């Protein structure tokens, strides 16, 4: 039935919901400004943390402050953008309690798409702004041998990093179908993952690499692409080009996310037990 629709017509439901969310958040100017300011403050504090850390050690994990700034900027920008557009997905218990998910079942769109497009946190734009400033500063302060490949990798890294964090939120949502108080568990990986992603991953030990390097591929959202841009060798004898695998990391995360969501929905409907 929906197959013959144009893309524009297919997007109509999602556009209508998102536009209304955006309007309602920005319609009270003073309160919206306050939201933006507080969100920016969170971003600035997290950046300051990196800076304080650096002041005590000059060099962290083989990187200087300006280089760490690039790692932080990349990872934090990606996370903030994902948090803005997908952050509500890991609040699934709220949707379950309010019966919103049952309401989604009664509408002719896919459940996950409805969930994703049911909200957008515009205030997180401010935090993404902090990430973007850090990224630009990181790019400017370092001697990067710019070439088309560098530009391409930068774009790939941002898109992939955004997708990876977005996938983390969806994964968390799927898991929360099963776990009571599941947010406690998933937060450790989603927000812990964000924290890990903004650090120079060369300081991680091997178990940490297993978890946040590969299983939840946080190292691919900032650290590894940044190393390639900077011309610094990756740790643990990884090949130079490993930073180019950021899109693979995104695909892997989304594979986990969609499986998690699918199992979660099956569990909710009671089909697969």
């Amino acid at each position: 039935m929906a197959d013959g629709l144009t893309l524009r017509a297919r997007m109509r439901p999602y556009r209508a919901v998102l536009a209304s969310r955006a309007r309602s958040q920005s319609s009270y100017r003073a309160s919206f400004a306050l939201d933006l300011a507080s969100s920016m403050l969170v971003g600035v504090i997290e950046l300051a943390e990196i800076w304080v850390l650096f002041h005590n050690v000059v060099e962290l994990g083989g990187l200087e402050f300006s280089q760490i700034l690039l790692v932080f900027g990349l990872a934090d920008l990606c996370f903030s953008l994902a948090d803005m557009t997908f952050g509500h997905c890991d609040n699934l218990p709220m949707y379950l309690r309010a019966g919103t998910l049952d309401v989604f079942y009664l509408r002719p769109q896919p459940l996950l798409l409805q969930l994703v497009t049911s909200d957008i946190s515009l205030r997180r734009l401010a935090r993404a702004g902090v990430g973007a400033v850090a990224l630009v500063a990181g790019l400017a302060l370092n001697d990067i041998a710019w070439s088309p490949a560098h530009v391409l990798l930068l774009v790939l890294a941002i898109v992939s990093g955004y997708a990876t964090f977005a996938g983390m939120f969806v994964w968390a949502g799927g898991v929360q179908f099963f776990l009571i108080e599941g947010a406690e568990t998933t937060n450790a990986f989603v927000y812990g993952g964000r924290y890990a992603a903004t650090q120079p991953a060369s300081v991680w030990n091997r178990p940490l690499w297993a978890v946040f390097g590969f299983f939840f591929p946080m190292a691919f959202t900032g650290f590894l692409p940044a190393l390639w841009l900077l011309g610094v060798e990756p740790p643990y004898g990884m090949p130079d080009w490993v930073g180019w695998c950021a899109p693979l990391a995104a695909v892997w995360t989304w594979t986990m996310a969609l499986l998690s969501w699918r199992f979660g929905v099956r569990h909710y409907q009671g089909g697969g037990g």
Partner: protein
Amino acid sequence: MGMTDPIIETSGLTREFRVRDTSTGSVQRALKRRTLVAVDELSVRVGPGEAVGYIGANGAGKSTTIKMLTGILVPTRGSVTTCGLRPVQDRRRLARQVGVVFGQRSQLWWDLPVRESFRILAAIHDLSATAEQERTDELVERLEMAEFLGTPVRQLSLGQRMRAEVAAALLHSPRLVILDEPTIGLDVLSKQRLREFLVAERRTHGTTLLLTTHDMGDVERLCDRILVIDRGRLAYDGDLLGLSRTVGAERVLVVDLAEATEDLTGITATRHLASEGHGLRQRLAFDAETTTAARVLAAVSERAEVLDLTVEEPDIEDVVRRIYAARR
């Protein structure tokens, strides 16, 4: 599908839940689970245009049935088709033909004006600009929503919100409308308005109605068929008169008399229930099968001057209780 194909058809529809058994000790509790049968071998056929009351105690299986009809829950056994579609597999196509009002779950956006919620829902159901305009106008007029169309949903009274919820569920002109406790908590006037609207909607559009309710008034004014469910099983399927006949439900005539009167006993097919204020107000139960309120009133009038009267309908809880008791 044709005009006579059923809107709802279930056959041996069963849904079980695995629940933790809390009656055993703590060690076994974690391991031992028991099976709770929420809906048990339900076989029902509802034709187009019917208006069906689905009644039963809390936890009897009403919500579980509705969730299986709409594709939210997968049946454990048995089959179900709604509007000729398989609810779980064809959920998205079915959503275009079914509208559901859950008393406890809102389809509206609480921080947006009612009008805005309708606009979004029109986009969700991909209504054309003309269809959206016409249907919205129709619903606004019939449900008398013009005065609060620009009000954010969170500021609406319960009665206004329920009207908006009903409009939201009906905006895409569904063939089947399922209402879960639509009049709960509403005042008399709001209830009446909502019922009148549903009657008119059914008459003009041939909409099939399925509603769960604890309100006998809903059943009497809206439904021409009643299903009673008891512990997941169908306990009664028929019309209201037959239901009263089955359980022998009595109506109660309450009369206010001009002066203190002796208890009005001995009237044909009537039972004296109680007297208040030295017999100024008396309550008489009568069997609607064998006599009428008018006849009872005439008999009362021979003995005393009647100032005022009300007729109490059998309470739905009472009817359900009697059915349950008869089955046990």
